[in-house]
């Protein structure tokens, strides 16, 4: 038994296919629980009022926006080194999800920032680096769309992902240097004292779990679609030959 056996598309489909509805249902349950719990059963913050509740959408989507890129980086490396097609397709499927998460994080942040900071947008390092991350997602998806040959597209986008990761990190530090921000620091670390209080913490954890499951669900779904699309194309090609 090794993890690489799931790189076989048939094996991958067989294993993840039956799991798919369960993951979807679990993610839906977690997100609904987290959001309902967070929205209706936690007290308002003493300074921020009810606006604090957008945290249950903002933090999980921001977390997934970054981790989706990280997952694409790992999948790209696996494709470049071991050339498993499932890996390249998973990276392809993760990109639109990550881009959507970035947009959700930016929009919820703007909605929160309007009453709290008094502005929809500030050129804060975190906000700016998220915008840059969104541009990276756009470029990555556009490159996938522009190349006809599948393997060439997978190779080129993988290398773009590697180079892009380096530059995304560079941009993160560059914008930090360029402007000191409004955005608060991390308040969910496991080892720090001044975290958010438990009342907000547990529903947030449930919501984060839901978003992680949602990401897994959408990536699996996208990968399945890609594999089926390729099989269909192969069948059509074979029919035309005969």
């Amino acid at each position: 038994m090794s993890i690489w056996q799931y790189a076989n598309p048939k094996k991958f489909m067989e294993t993840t296919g039956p799991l798919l509805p369960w993951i979807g249902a679990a993610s839906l349950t977690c997100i609904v629980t987290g959001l309902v719990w967070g929205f209706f059963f936690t007290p308002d913050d003493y300074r921020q009022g009810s606006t604090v509740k957008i945290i249950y959408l903002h933090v999980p989507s921001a977390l997934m926006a970054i981790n989706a890129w990280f997952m694409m980086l790992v999948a790209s490396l696996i494709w470049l080194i071991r050339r498993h097609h499932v890996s390249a397709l998973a990276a392809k499927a993760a990109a639109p999800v990550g881009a959507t998460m970035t947009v959700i994080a930016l929009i919820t942040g703007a909605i929160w920032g309007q009453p709290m900071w008094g502005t929809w947008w500030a050129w804060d390092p975190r906000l700016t680096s998220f915008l840059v991350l969104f541009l990276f997602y756009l470029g990555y998806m556009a490159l996938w769309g522009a190349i006809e040959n599948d393997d060439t597209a997978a190779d080129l986008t993988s290398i773009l992902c590697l180079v892009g990761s380096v530059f995304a990190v560079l941009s993160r530090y560059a914008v930090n240097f360029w402007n000191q921000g409004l955005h608060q620091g991390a308040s969910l670390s496991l080892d720090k004292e001044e975290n958010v209080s438990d009342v907000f913490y547990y529903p947030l954890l449930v919501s984060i779990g839901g978003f992680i499951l949602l990401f897994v669900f959408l990536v699996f779904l996208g990968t399945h679609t890609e594999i089926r699309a390729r099989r269909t194309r192969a069948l059509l090609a074979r029919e035309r030959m005969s």
Partner: protein
Amino acid sequence: MIALLLRDLRLAVRAGGGFGLGLAFFLIVVVLVPFGVGPESGLLSVIAPGVLWIGALLACLLSLDRIFALDWEDGSLDLLATAPVPLEGIVTVKALAHWLTTGLPLVLAAPALGILLSLPQGGYLWLVVSLALGTPALSVIGTFGAALTVGIKRGGLLLSLLVLPLYVPTLIFGAEVARRGAEGFEVMTPLLMLGGITFGALALLPFASAAVLRINLR
């Protein structure tokens, strides 16, 4: 490699090579800015370093697709790839040729355009230094983008979408050097960062560009 460099330079300078187009574009961008924001010299002198940097960056971007497109069309890129010189070296020479025909003229023209934007007295030196140190990074990063999109028809817009996010760190540090220089602050920290980006890109990106080119020529 020197022969290749001379060939690229000759091709760029002769008719149809687009030499000077980037420079003219730079000039037009800088001339348009006062029309857009108004002619007060106080405002212009504040934004001058940033405008000059963005103008230089866009002028650089404009000429990127020429790096490989013509060689790709007439097949000489295949010959270059099979030449005894490693592809990494060829890519580096291409980037150098692009810098000599686009980046260097921009650096030399920038002080003249700084006068148009009433750049403060002390800013000229650091503007030239930051552009001279930063534009090689723009050429090297752009060569990577051009190698990525070489096989795509009408890939110009895609090239911009891919390359512009990669330009963010260079632009931030380059414009920061120019701005601090113009306002008379110390410039060493961003200057060192800019140098780090340029030399890091110069050392590592040719490998990525060459790998991408090999995939495209497969």
